[in-house]
Protein backbone atom coordinates (compact mmCIF):
# COMPACT_ATOMS: atom_id res chain seq x y z
CA UNK A 1 0.00 0.00 0.00
CA UNK A 2 1.45 3.35 -0.99
CA UNK A 3 1.19 6.57 0.93
CA UNK A 4 -2.27 8.15 0.88
CA UNK A 5 -1.79 11.91 1.13
CA UNK A 6 -5.38 12.67 2.11
CA UNK A 7 -5.08 10.29 5.03
CA UNK A 8 -1.95 12.09 6.18
CA UNK A 9 -3.77 15.43 6.26
CA UNK A 10 -6.75 13.82 7.99
CA UNK A 11 -4.56 12.45 10.76
CA UNK A 12 -2.98 15.88 11.14
CA UNK A 13 -6.42 17.41 11.71
CA UNK A 14 -7.25 14.69 14.25
CA UNK A 15 -4.05 15.56 16.09
CA UNK A 16 -4.95 19.26 16.13
CA UNK A 17 -8.43 18.46 17.44
CA UNK A 18 -7.00 16.26 20.20
CA UNK A 19 -4.58 19.04 21.07
CA UNK A 20 -7.47 21.45 21.53
CA UNK A 21 -9.20 19.08 23.97
CA UNK A 22 -5.93 18.31 25.75
CA UNK A 23 -4.99 21.88 26.56
CA UNK A 24 -8.54 22.88 27.53
CA UNK A 25 -8.57 20.16 30.14
CA UNK A 26 -5.00 20.86 31.14
CA UNK A 27 -5.93 24.40 32.07
CA UNK A 28 -9.01 23.26 33.98
CA UNK A 29 -7.00 20.60 35.78
CA UNK A 30 -4.53 23.17 37.05
CA UNK A 31 -7.42 25.45 38.03
CA UNK A 32 -9.00 22.59 39.93
CA UNK A 33 -6.02 22.42 42.23
CA UNK A 34 -4.39 25.88 42.16
CA UNK A 35 -1.22 24.68 40.48
CA UNK A 36 1.48 26.90 39.03
CA UNK A 37 0.84 30.67 39.09
CA UNK A 38 -2.39 30.88 41.14
CA UNK A 39 -0.76 28.59 43.67
CA UNK A 40 1.56 31.42 44.71
CA UNK A 41 -1.46 33.36 45.95
CA UNK A 42 -3.01 30.39 47.74
CA UNK A 43 0.35 29.82 49.41
CA UNK A 44 0.58 33.48 50.35
CA UNK A 45 -3.02 33.77 51.55
CA UNK A 46 -2.51 31.85 54.77
CA UNK A 47 0.63 33.88 55.48
CA UNK A 48 -1.31 37.15 55.36
CA UNK A 49 -3.95 35.71 57.67
CA UNK A 50 -6.44 34.59 55.06
CA UNK A 51 -7.25 31.03 56.08
CA UNK A 52 -8.91 29.37 53.11
CA UNK A 53 -10.40 26.15 51.82
CA UNK A 54 -8.33 25.96 48.63
CA UNK A 55 -6.43 22.91 47.44
CA UNK A 56 -2.69 23.63 47.52
CA UNK A 57 -1.49 21.51 44.60
CA UNK A 58 2.16 22.52 44.38
CA UNK A 59 3.50 19.88 41.97
CA UNK A 60 6.27 22.04 40.49
CA UNK A 61 5.33 24.03 37.40
CA UNK A 62 2.76 22.71 34.96
CA UNK A 63 5.27 21.80 32.20
CA UNK A 64 7.18 19.39 34.36
CA UNK A 65 4.13 17.86 36.00
CA UNK A 66 2.39 17.31 32.68
CA UNK A 67 5.57 15.87 31.23
CA UNK A 68 5.54 13.49 34.19
CA UNK A 69 1.98 12.31 33.57
CA UNK A 70 2.39 12.05 29.81
CA UNK A 71 5.75 10.27 30.01
CA UNK A 72 4.30 7.83 32.56
CA UNK A 73 1.23 7.19 30.42
CA UNK A 74 3.37 6.88 27.31
CA UNK A 75 5.77 4.43 28.95
CA UNK A 76 3.07 2.20 30.41
CA UNK A 77 1.11 2.27 27.16
CA UNK A 78 4.25 1.54 25.16
CA UNK A 79 5.20 -1.40 27.41
CA UNK A 80 1.70 -2.83 27.04
CA UNK A 81 1.78 -2.31 23.26
CA UNK A 82 5.04 -4.23 23.13
CA UNK A 83 3.31 -7.22 24.74
CA UNK A 84 -0.10 -6.88 23.13
CA UNK A 85 0.73 -6.04 19.51
CA UNK A 86 2.13 -9.50 18.68
CA UNK A 87 -1.18 -11.01 19.86
CA UNK A 88 -3.19 -9.22 17.17
CA UNK A 89 -1.02 -9.29 14.02
CA UNK A 90 -2.30 -7.04 11.29
CA UNK A 91 -4.74 -5.26 13.60
CA UNK A 92 -2.41 -3.33 15.90
CA UNK A 93 -5.05 -0.72 16.70
CA UNK A 94 -6.82 -3.25 18.91
CA UNK A 95 -3.78 -3.29 21.18
CA UNK A 96 -3.72 0.51 21.29
CA UNK A 97 -7.38 0.67 22.31
CA UNK A 98 -6.53 -1.23 25.47
CA UNK A 99 -3.00 -0.02 26.12
CA UNK A 100 -3.52 3.75 25.96
CA UNK A 101 -6.35 3.99 28.54
CA UNK A 102 -4.51 1.68 30.94
CA UNK A 103 -1.36 3.77 30.64
CA UNK A 104 -3.32 6.96 31.18
CA UNK A 105 -5.01 5.46 34.23
CA UNK A 106 -1.57 4.82 35.73
CA UNK A 107 -0.66 8.45 35.06
CA UNK A 108 -3.86 9.68 36.72
CA UNK A 109 -3.01 7.66 39.81
CA UNK A 110 0.48 9.15 39.87
CA UNK A 111 -1.14 12.56 39.65
CA UNK A 112 -3.37 11.84 42.64
CA UNK A 113 -0.43 10.62 44.71
CA UNK A 114 1.57 13.76 43.97
CA UNK A 115 -1.45 15.97 44.64
CA UNK A 116 -2.01 14.44 48.07
CA UNK A 117 1.64 14.77 49.07
CA UNK A 118 1.87 18.38 47.99
CA UNK A 119 -1.39 19.50 49.62
CA UNK A 120 -0.64 17.77 52.92
CA UNK A 121 3.03 18.74 52.90
CA UNK A 122 2.46 22.40 52.14
CA UNK A 123 -0.38 22.75 54.62
CA UNK A 124 1.57 21.03 57.38
CA UNK A 125 4.46 23.40 56.70
CA UNK A 126 2.14 26.36 57.32
CA UNK A 127 1.39 25.38 60.89
CA UNK A 128 2.26 28.76 62.36
CA UNK A 129 -0.31 30.49 60.17
CA UNK A 130 -3.05 28.28 61.66
CA UNK A 131 -4.13 26.79 58.35
CA UNK A 132 -5.84 23.45 59.05
CA UNK A 133 -6.05 20.45 56.72
CA UNK A 134 -9.71 20.09 55.74
CA UNK A 135 -10.23 16.45 54.89
CA UNK A 136 -13.29 17.10 52.73
CA UNK A 137 -11.26 19.54 50.65
CA UNK A 138 -8.51 16.96 50.29
CA UNK A 139 -10.75 14.05 49.29
CA UNK A 140 -13.28 16.09 47.33
CA UNK A 141 -10.74 17.51 44.91
CA UNK A 142 -8.86 14.33 44.12
CA UNK A 143 -11.38 12.83 41.73
CA UNK A 144 -11.99 16.03 39.72
CA UNK A 145 -8.22 16.52 39.44
CA UNK A 146 -7.73 12.94 38.29
CA UNK A 147 -10.54 13.04 35.72
CA UNK A 148 -9.35 16.29 34.18
CA UNK A 149 -5.78 14.99 34.11
CA UNK A 150 -7.07 11.79 32.55
CA UNK A 151 -8.54 13.74 29.64
CA UNK A 152 -5.35 15.73 29.09
CA UNK A 153 -3.03 12.77 29.32
CA UNK A 154 -5.31 10.62 27.19
CA UNK A 155 -5.33 13.15 24.36
CA UNK A 156 -1.58 13.72 24.55
CA UNK A 157 -0.87 9.99 24.57
CA UNK A 158 -3.14 9.58 21.55
CA UNK A 159 -1.28 12.40 19.78
CA UNK A 160 2.04 10.73 20.59
CA UNK A 161 0.72 7.37 19.41
CA UNK A 162 -0.58 8.79 16.14
CA UNK A 163 2.63 10.72 15.50
CA UNK A 164 4.92 7.80 16.23
CA UNK A 165 2.80 5.68 13.86
CA UNK A 166 1.80 8.39 11.40
CA UNK A 167 3.50 6.76 8.45
CA UNK A 168 2.17 3.29 9.22
CA UNK A 169 -1.34 4.64 9.61
CA UNK A 170 -1.23 6.42 6.25
CA UNK A 171 0.63 3.80 4.26
CA UNK A 172 4.40 4.34 4.45
CA UNK A 173 6.23 3.53 7.72
CA UNK A 174 9.23 5.71 6.86
CA UNK A 175 7.16 8.80 7.72
CA UNK A 176 6.91 7.68 11.36
CA UNK A 177 8.40 10.22 13.73
CA UNK A 178 11.92 9.17 14.83
CA UNK A 179 11.11 9.64 18.54
CA UNK A 180 9.52 6.84 20.53
CA UNK A 181 6.08 7.09 22.11
CA UNK A 182 7.25 8.00 25.67
CA UNK A 183 9.63 10.66 24.38
CA UNK A 184 6.88 12.26 22.27
CA UNK A 185 4.59 12.17 25.30
CA UNK A 186 7.31 13.92 27.28
CA UNK A 187 7.80 16.60 24.62
CA UNK A 188 4.10 17.38 24.22
CA UNK A 189 3.62 17.19 27.98
CA UNK A 190 6.19 19.95 28.46
CA UNK A 191 4.62 22.04 25.70
CA UNK A 192 1.03 21.60 26.84
CA UNK A 193 2.07 22.49 30.37
CA UNK A 194 3.98 25.60 29.41
CA UNK A 195 0.98 26.83 27.40
CA UNK A 196 -1.48 26.00 30.16
CA UNK A 197 0.73 27.87 32.58
CA UNK A 198 1.45 30.91 30.44
CA UNK A 199 -1.98 31.60 28.97
CA UNK A 200 -4.47 29.60 30.99
CA UNK A 201 -3.66 30.87 34.44
CA UNK A 202 -4.34 34.47 33.50
CA UNK A 203 -8.09 33.97 33.60
CA UNK A 204 -7.90 32.44 37.06
CA UNK A 205 -5.01 34.35 38.54
CA UNK A 206 -6.49 37.81 38.05
CA UNK A 207 -10.12 37.13 37.75
CA UNK A 208 -11.40 34.48 40.03
CA UNK A 209 -8.91 34.74 42.83
CA UNK A 210 -9.40 38.50 43.11
CA UNK A 211 -13.04 38.79 42.22
CA UNK A 212 -13.81 41.36 44.90
CA UNK A 213 -11.20 43.77 43.47
CA UNK A 214 -11.91 46.22 40.62
CA UNK A 215 -12.13 44.80 37.09
CA UNK A 216 -9.96 46.39 34.43
CA UNK A 217 -6.74 46.88 36.32
CA UNK A 218 -3.70 44.79 37.07
CA UNK A 219 -3.58 43.42 40.59
CA UNK A 220 -1.61 45.78 42.78
CA UNK A 221 1.08 44.38 44.98
CA UNK A 222 -0.85 45.27 48.16
CA UNK A 223 -3.66 42.93 47.12
CA UNK A 224 -1.34 39.95 46.77
CA UNK A 225 -2.41 37.08 48.99
CA UNK A 226 -5.77 38.67 49.74
CA UNK A 227 -7.73 36.20 47.66
CA UNK A 228 -11.48 35.93 47.36
CA UNK A 229 -12.36 33.21 49.79
CA UNK A 230 -16.15 33.22 49.55
CA UNK A 231 -18.11 31.85 46.62
CA UNK A 232 -21.56 32.81 45.35
CA UNK A 233 -22.87 30.65 48.15
CA UNK A 234 -20.71 29.60 51.09
CA UNK A 235 -16.95 29.19 51.30
CA UNK A 236 -15.10 28.84 48.02
CA UNK A 237 -13.17 25.74 47.03
CA UNK A 238 -11.47 25.13 43.72
CA UNK A 239 -14.42 23.22 42.34
CA UNK A 240 -16.20 26.57 42.01
CA UNK A 241 -13.35 27.89 39.93
CA UNK A 242 -13.09 25.25 37.20
CA UNK A 243 -16.68 25.97 36.13
CA UNK A 244 -15.83 29.66 35.78
CA UNK A 245 -12.67 29.04 33.79
CA UNK A 246 -14.37 26.51 31.52
CA UNK A 247 -16.30 29.38 29.96
CA UNK A 248 -13.37 31.39 28.65
CA UNK A 249 -9.90 30.60 29.97
CA UNK A 250 -9.95 26.88 29.23
CA UNK A 251 -11.15 27.03 25.61
CA UNK A 252 -8.81 29.89 24.71
CA UNK A 253 -5.89 27.96 26.18
CA UNK A 254 -7.01 24.88 24.28
CA UNK A 255 -7.12 26.92 21.10
CA UNK A 256 -3.55 28.09 21.70
CA UNK A 257 -2.19 24.57 21.79
CA UNK A 258 -4.50 23.43 18.99
CA UNK A 259 -3.26 26.28 16.78
CA UNK A 260 0.37 25.51 17.57
CA UNK A 261 0.00 21.84 16.70
CA UNK A 262 -2.00 22.71 13.61
CA UNK A 263 0.49 25.30 12.34
CA UNK A 264 3.51 23.13 13.10
CA UNK A 265 2.21 20.04 11.35
CA UNK A 266 0.43 21.91 8.61
CA UNK A 267 3.46 23.87 7.46
CA UNK A 268 5.56 20.69 7.29
CA UNK A 269 2.85 18.83 5.36
CA UNK A 270 2.20 21.69 2.96
CA UNK A 271 5.93 21.97 2.35
CA UNK A 272 6.11 18.28 1.56
CA UNK A 273 3.08 18.46 -0.70
CA UNK A 274 4.09 21.58 -2.65
CA UNK A 275 7.64 20.40 -3.29
CA UNK A 276 6.43 17.10 -4.73
CA UNK A 277 8.05 15.18 -1.87
CA UNK A 278 4.94 13.47 -0.68
CA UNK A 279 3.86 10.28 -2.32
CA UNK A 280 7.34 9.02 -3.29
CA UNK A 281 9.40 10.31 -0.30
CA UNK A 282 12.81 10.82 -2.00
CA UNK A 283 14.86 11.39 1.17
CA UNK A 284 18.15 13.34 1.17
CA UNK A 285 17.55 14.87 -2.25
CA UNK A 286 16.98 18.43 -3.39
CA UNK A 287 13.23 17.74 -3.42
CA UNK A 288 13.40 16.91 0.29
CA UNK A 289 15.39 20.07 0.97
CA UNK A 290 12.80 22.05 -0.95
CA UNK A 291 10.09 20.58 1.32
CA UNK A 292 11.96 21.85 4.37
CA UNK A 293 12.51 25.27 2.77
CA UNK A 294 8.81 25.70 1.97
CA UNK A 295 7.96 24.60 5.51
CA UNK A 296 10.30 27.24 6.96
CA UNK A 297 8.90 29.97 4.70
CA UNK A 298 5.34 29.03 5.66
CA UNK A 299 6.33 29.19 9.32
CA UNK A 300 7.85 32.64 8.90
CA UNK A 301 4.68 33.83 7.16
CA UNK A 302 2.57 32.56 10.08
CA UNK A 303 4.84 34.36 12.55
CA UNK A 304 4.68 37.57 10.55
CA UNK A 305 0.89 37.36 10.43
CA UNK A 306 0.76 36.90 14.20
CA UNK A 307 3.08 39.87 14.79
CA UNK A 308 0.93 42.11 12.60
CA UNK A 309 -2.16 40.73 14.31
CA UNK A 310 -0.73 41.67 17.69
CA UNK A 311 0.14 45.17 16.46
CA UNK A 312 -3.42 45.73 15.24
CA UNK A 313 -4.95 44.16 18.31
CA UNK A 314 -2.91 46.22 20.80
CA UNK A 315 -3.70 49.42 18.89
CA UNK A 316 -7.41 48.58 18.91
CA UNK A 317 -7.38 47.85 22.64
CA UNK A 318 -5.55 51.05 23.46
CA UNK A 319 -8.16 53.04 21.55
CA UNK A 320 -11.07 51.09 22.96
CA UNK A 321 -10.02 51.09 26.60
CA UNK A 322 -8.07 54.33 26.85
CA UNK A 323 -5.69 55.37 29.62
CA UNK A 324 -6.05 54.16 33.19
CA UNK A 325 -8.75 56.14 34.99
CA UNK A 326 -8.93 54.60 38.47
CA UNK A 327 -6.97 55.71 41.49
Amino acid at each position, binding site marked *: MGLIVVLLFAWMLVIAFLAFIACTFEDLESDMGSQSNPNSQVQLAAQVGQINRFFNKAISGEPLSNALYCATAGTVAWLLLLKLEPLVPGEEWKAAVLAIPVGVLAAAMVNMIFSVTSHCGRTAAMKRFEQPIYLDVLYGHLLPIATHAFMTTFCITCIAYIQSNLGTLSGNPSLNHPFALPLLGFIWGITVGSIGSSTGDVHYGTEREFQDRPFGEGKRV*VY*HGKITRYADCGVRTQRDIAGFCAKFGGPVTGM*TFGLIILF*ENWRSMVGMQLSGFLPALPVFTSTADMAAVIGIVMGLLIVAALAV*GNLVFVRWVRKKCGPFVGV
Partner: protein
Amino acid sequence: MEPVLMILIVVLVVIGGLLASLGAHLLPVGGAPAAMGTATGIATGTVQIMLGATMTGLFTAASVATFSDSLALVALSGAVGATVMISVVMFMANILYVFGCGVVPISGRVDVDPITKEPQAPYKTPQTDGHGVPNVVFVSGMMGGFIGGLGGALMYYALLNYAGFSAGTAAIGALSIFVANAIIAAYNIRGTIEGFHDPKFKRLPFALATSLAVSLLCGIVVVIAATVLGGAM
Protein backbone atom coordinates in the same frame (compact mmCIF):
# COMPACT_ATOMS: atom_id res chain seq x y z
CA MET B 1 36.99 10.33 14.62
CA GLU B 2 38.54 13.12 12.58
CA PRO B 3 39.71 16.20 14.50
CA VAL B 4 37.59 18.49 12.30
CA LEU B 5 34.47 16.66 13.33
CA MET B 6 35.47 16.79 17.00
CA ILE B 7 36.00 20.54 16.85
CA LEU B 8 32.73 20.93 14.97
CA ILE B 9 30.80 19.09 17.71
CA VAL B 10 32.32 21.23 20.46
CA VAL B 11 31.71 24.43 18.51
CA LEU B 12 28.10 23.57 17.76
CA VAL B 13 27.38 22.55 21.35
CA VAL B 14 28.96 25.77 22.64
CA ILE B 15 27.00 27.87 20.13
CA GLY B 16 23.84 26.02 21.08
CA GLY B 17 24.45 26.66 24.76
CA LEU B 18 25.16 30.35 24.22
CA LEU B 19 22.05 30.70 22.07
CA ALA B 20 19.99 28.98 24.77
CA SER B 21 21.23 31.52 27.29
CA LEU B 22 20.64 34.46 24.97
CA GLY B 23 17.19 33.21 24.00
CA ALA B 24 16.20 32.84 27.64
CA HIS B 25 17.17 36.47 28.25
CA LEU B 26 15.11 37.68 25.31
CA LEU B 27 11.91 35.91 26.30
CA PRO B 28 9.48 38.15 28.19
CA VAL B 29 8.91 36.27 31.42
CA GLY B 30 6.64 37.55 34.13
CA GLY B 31 6.19 34.53 36.38
CA ALA B 32 3.29 34.45 38.81
CA PRO B 33 2.88 38.27 38.91
CA ALA B 34 2.19 38.27 35.16
CA ALA B 35 -0.76 35.93 35.67
CA MET B 36 -2.32 38.63 37.84
CA GLY B 37 -1.51 41.49 35.50
CA THR B 38 1.10 42.76 37.97
CA ALA B 39 4.01 42.33 35.56
CA THR B 40 4.55 42.36 31.81
CA GLY B 41 5.29 39.17 29.94
CA ILE B 42 4.34 35.54 29.73
CA ALA B 43 2.94 34.17 32.97
CA THR B 44 5.42 31.39 33.61
CA GLY B 45 9.04 30.70 34.48
CA THR B 46 11.95 31.27 32.10
CA VAL B 47 13.02 27.64 31.94
CA GLN B 48 9.49 26.40 31.43
CA ILE B 49 8.53 28.55 28.46
CA MET B 50 11.99 28.18 26.94
CA LEU B 51 11.72 24.39 27.19
CA GLY B 52 8.18 24.40 25.78
CA ALA B 53 9.20 26.45 22.76
CA THR B 54 12.39 24.51 22.12
CA MET B 55 10.65 21.15 22.43
CA THR B 56 8.13 22.20 19.80
CA GLY B 57 10.98 23.27 17.56
CA LEU B 58 12.91 20.08 18.26
CA PHE B 59 9.90 18.02 17.21
CA THR B 60 9.85 19.64 13.77
CA ALA B 61 13.65 19.64 13.52
CA ALA B 62 13.72 15.91 14.20
CA SER B 63 11.14 15.34 11.45
CA VAL B 64 13.17 17.39 9.01
CA ALA B 65 16.37 15.60 10.02
CA THR B 66 14.87 12.32 8.81
CA PHE B 67 14.69 13.51 5.22
CA SER B 68 17.26 16.29 4.92
CA ASP B 69 20.91 16.35 5.96
CA SER B 70 21.40 20.09 5.65
CA LEU B 71 22.51 21.72 8.91
CA ALA B 72 20.92 25.05 8.02
CA LEU B 73 17.53 23.57 7.15
CA VAL B 74 17.30 21.42 10.29
CA ALA B 75 18.37 24.31 12.53
CA LEU B 76 16.03 26.80 10.86
CA SER B 77 13.10 24.38 11.04
CA GLY B 78 13.64 24.10 14.78
CA ALA B 79 14.00 27.85 15.15
CA VAL B 80 10.83 28.60 13.19
CA GLY B 81 8.90 25.93 15.11
CA ALA B 82 9.87 27.55 18.42
CA THR B 83 8.96 31.00 17.05
CA VAL B 84 5.53 29.83 15.92
CA MET B 85 4.90 28.37 19.37
CA ILE B 86 5.95 31.46 21.27
CA SER B 87 4.10 33.85 18.94
CA VAL B 88 0.81 31.96 19.24
CA VAL B 89 1.21 31.84 23.01
CA MET B 90 1.87 35.59 23.28
CA PHE B 91 -0.99 36.50 20.94
CA MET B 92 -3.53 34.31 22.72
CA ALA B 93 -2.28 35.49 26.12
CA ASN B 94 -3.01 39.04 24.98
CA ILE B 95 -6.57 38.05 24.08
CA LEU B 96 -6.99 36.61 27.57
CA TYR B 97 -5.52 39.68 29.24
CA VAL B 98 -7.79 42.03 27.34
CA PHE B 99 -11.08 40.17 27.43
CA GLY B 100 -10.56 38.22 30.65
CA CYS B 101 -8.98 40.87 32.85
CA GLY B 102 -9.69 44.12 31.04
CA VAL B 103 -6.11 45.40 31.05
CA VAL B 104 -4.28 47.12 28.20
CA PRO B 105 -1.00 45.43 27.20
CA ILE B 106 1.75 47.85 28.21
CA SER B 107 5.36 47.68 29.29
CA GLY B 108 6.36 48.65 32.80
CA ARG B 109 10.06 49.19 32.20
CA VAL B 110 9.95 51.84 29.46
CA ASP B 111 7.74 54.94 29.15
CA VAL B 112 7.51 54.82 25.35
CA ASP B 113 7.39 51.66 23.28
CA PRO B 114 10.76 51.69 21.39
CA ILE B 115 9.18 50.21 18.26
CA THR B 116 5.73 51.76 17.85
CA LYS B 117 6.50 54.92 19.89
CA GLU B 118 3.23 54.54 21.78
CA PRO B 119 3.21 56.03 25.30
CA GLN B 120 2.99 53.41 28.03
CA ALA B 121 2.85 55.10 31.42
CA PRO B 122 -0.72 56.53 31.31
CA TYR B 123 -2.21 53.11 30.70
CA LYS B 124 -0.48 51.42 33.61
CA THR B 125 -2.22 50.52 36.86
CA PRO B 126 -0.42 52.13 39.81
CA GLN B 127 1.65 49.75 41.95
CA THR B 128 2.04 47.30 39.11
CA ASP B 129 4.89 46.63 36.73
CA GLY B 130 2.97 46.60 33.47
CA HIS B 131 0.64 43.96 32.07
CA GLY B 132 0.10 41.86 28.95
CA VAL B 133 2.39 41.53 25.96
CA PRO B 134 2.90 44.90 24.20
CA ASN B 135 4.53 45.10 20.79
CA VAL B 136 8.13 45.61 21.82
CA VAL B 137 7.85 42.64 24.15
CA PHE B 138 6.22 40.60 21.40
CA VAL B 139 9.15 41.28 19.07
CA SER B 140 11.64 40.43 21.79
CA GLY B 141 9.80 37.19 22.51
CA MET B 142 9.81 36.24 18.84
CA MET B 143 13.56 36.76 18.71
CA GLY B 144 14.01 34.78 21.91
CA GLY B 145 11.99 31.87 20.57
CA PHE B 146 13.89 31.90 17.28
CA ILE B 147 17.30 31.98 18.97
CA GLY B 148 16.41 29.36 21.57
CA GLY B 149 14.94 27.00 18.99
CA LEU B 150 18.00 27.49 16.80
CA GLY B 151 20.27 26.58 19.70
CA GLY B 152 18.34 23.43 20.53
CA ALA B 153 18.16 22.26 16.92
CA LEU B 154 21.89 22.95 16.36
CA MET B 155 22.80 20.77 19.32
CA TYR B 156 20.43 18.06 18.17
CA TYR B 157 21.97 18.10 14.70
CA ALA B 158 25.52 17.97 16.06
CA LEU B 159 24.74 15.03 18.32
CA LEU B 160 22.74 13.20 15.66
CA ASN B 161 24.90 13.58 12.58
CA TYR B 162 28.40 14.46 13.79
CA ALA B 163 28.59 12.46 17.02
CA GLY B 164 26.56 9.65 15.49
CA PHE B 165 24.03 9.29 18.34
CA SER B 166 20.64 7.69 17.69
CA ALA B 167 17.61 10.01 17.47
CA GLY B 168 16.46 9.30 21.03
CA THR B 169 19.94 9.74 22.55
CA ALA B 170 20.56 12.90 20.58
CA ALA B 171 17.22 14.40 21.65
CA ILE B 172 17.68 13.74 25.35
CA GLY B 173 21.35 14.79 25.21
CA ALA B 174 20.52 18.06 23.47
CA LEU B 175 17.69 18.63 25.93
CA SER B 176 20.00 18.07 28.91
CA ILE B 177 22.67 20.51 27.75
CA PHE B 178 20.02 23.01 26.72
CA VAL B 179 18.20 22.86 30.04
CA ALA B 180 21.40 23.38 32.03
CA ASN B 181 22.13 26.56 30.08
CA ALA B 182 18.56 27.82 30.31
CA ILE B 183 18.53 27.31 34.07
CA ILE B 184 21.79 29.21 34.51
CA ALA B 185 20.24 32.03 32.46
CA ALA B 186 17.16 31.91 34.68
CA TYR B 187 19.35 32.29 37.77
CA ASN B 188 20.94 35.30 36.16
CA ILE B 189 17.54 36.85 35.36
CA ARG B 190 16.08 36.26 38.86
CA GLY B 191 12.36 36.37 38.30
CA THR B 192 10.98 38.67 35.64
CA ILE B 193 12.43 40.20 32.48
CA GLU B 194 10.73 41.98 29.60
CA GLY B 195 13.23 41.52 26.79
CA PHE B 196 16.08 43.40 25.17
CA HIS B 197 14.87 46.80 26.40
CA ASP B 198 14.85 45.71 30.03
CA PRO B 199 17.67 47.06 32.28
CA LYS B 200 18.25 43.48 33.46
CA PHE B 201 19.27 42.54 29.92
CA LYS B 202 22.62 44.23 30.65
CA ARG B 203 23.43 41.30 32.95
CA LEU B 204 23.58 39.04 29.88
CA PRO B 205 27.42 38.77 29.68
CA PHE B 206 27.58 37.09 33.10
CA ALA B 207 25.23 34.32 32.01
CA LEU B 208 27.01 33.98 28.67
CA ALA B 209 30.37 33.51 30.42
CA THR B 210 28.95 30.79 32.64
CA SER B 211 27.16 29.16 29.73
CA LEU B 212 30.35 29.17 27.72
CA ALA B 213 32.21 27.30 30.46
CA VAL B 214 29.45 24.78 31.05
CA SER B 215 28.71 24.05 27.40
CA LEU B 216 32.40 23.82 26.56
CA LEU B 217 32.81 21.12 29.20
CA CYS B 218 29.62 19.38 28.07
CA GLY B 219 30.80 19.51 24.45
CA ILE B 220 34.11 17.94 25.42
CA VAL B 221 32.25 15.22 27.32
CA VAL B 222 30.14 14.49 24.23
CA VAL B 223 33.22 14.38 22.01
CA ILE B 224 35.00 11.97 24.36
CA ALA B 225 31.94 9.72 24.45
CA ALA B 226 31.56 9.82 20.67
CA THR B 227 35.27 9.15 20.10
CA VAL B 228 35.44 6.22 22.47
CA LEU B 229 32.40 4.62 20.95
CA GLY B 230 33.50 5.40 17.40
CA GLY B 231 30.00 5.96 16.11
CA ALA B 232 28.83 2.57 17.40
CA MET B 233 25.45 3.86 18.48
